[in-house]
């Protein structure tokens, strides 16, 4: 069990940041989609910039092994267009309505929000629905 501890700690940090930055706030999401505040864009852009720079550092330094001894490699997303755009549209549409994407959903459920738990329950059903319909969908 001890090997899972780092994931728990990083997960706690992630949930804490999502709530403290108000990225888990429906209000902030509406404000973002109406371009009325730089806050959410600042979070997204600086997160991506940090990610890009740190990935480049890992690559340049040639860090080959993770803490548990596994080789570090960055998995490639499967090629395609339709599933990414259409899936993104459906997800984004739901996100725009209720202002919660999967990360904030878990963080807000942790605060005891019954509504967030209902959203989470819905998203589990949606995920199951995708699994059941997968073969019939264009990808």
């Amino acid at each position, binding site marked *: 069990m001890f*090997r899972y501890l*780092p*994931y*728990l*700690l*990083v*997960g*706690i940090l*992630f*949930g804490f*940041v999502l709530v*403290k930055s*108000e990225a888990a706030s429906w*209000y902030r*999401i509406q*404000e973002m*989609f*109406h371009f009325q*505040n730089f806050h959410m864009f600042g979070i*997204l852009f*600086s*997160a*991506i*910039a*940090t*990610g890009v720079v*740190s990935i480049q550092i890992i690559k340049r330094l040639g860090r080959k092994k*993770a*803490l*548990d001894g*596994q080789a570090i490699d960055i998995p490639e*997303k499967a090629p395609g267009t339709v599933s*990414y755009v*259409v*899936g*993104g*549209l459906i*997800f*984004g549409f*739901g*996100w*725009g*309505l*209720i202002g919660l*994407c*999967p*990360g904030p*959903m*878990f*963080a*807000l459920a*942790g605060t005891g929000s019954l509504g967030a738990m*209902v959203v989470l*329950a*819905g998203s*589990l*059903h949606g*995920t199951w629905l*995708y699994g059941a319909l997968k073969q019939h*969908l264009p990808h």
Partner: protein
Amino acid sequence: MDWLVHPWPWYVAGPLIGLMVPLMLFIGNRSFGISNNLRHLCAITQPPTVEVDFFRYNWKEHVWSLVFVIGTGLGGYLAGVVFADPNPVQLSQAAQDMLLSWGFLLPSGSLVPDELFHTSVRNFTFLFACGVLVGFGTRYAGGCTSGHAITGLSTLQLPSLYAVLGIFGGGLIASWFLVPHMLIG
């Protein structure tokens, strides 16, 4: 300890979120992303009578990921309950005016509006239905804001750019054309 209570500015929160990508690689060569956990939870709870192939795999290999989202929930609890900020979300003036024109009250301490999240059959039906869209869409797209916008764009992957454009497009449609009319026709 004020910093644990007050909201964090974007230039603190953003880099911390971005650091999730190298941290997860460093800890165990993991790709940072949240929505896969929804799939794992389906795999765990799928009854043998309705076996869907998509959920038939050894989810025990992904326990690390479930531990991570349990942490996310705990982090939410710490930030939102233990170190709760009693002050309402400080929205821009433009956003405040917009909310009022939509018939919403200004934020009063909660991160989400009571108008949509307080316990009622109508609200919970709506929240559940939107959750279905989020869960379906995110799996169809193969990731959510974390897996595509953060991890995917950080590693310069084109499919993630498609997904992010779709996500933002869907959000714009909902936020501009539906949300304004949710409370008042």
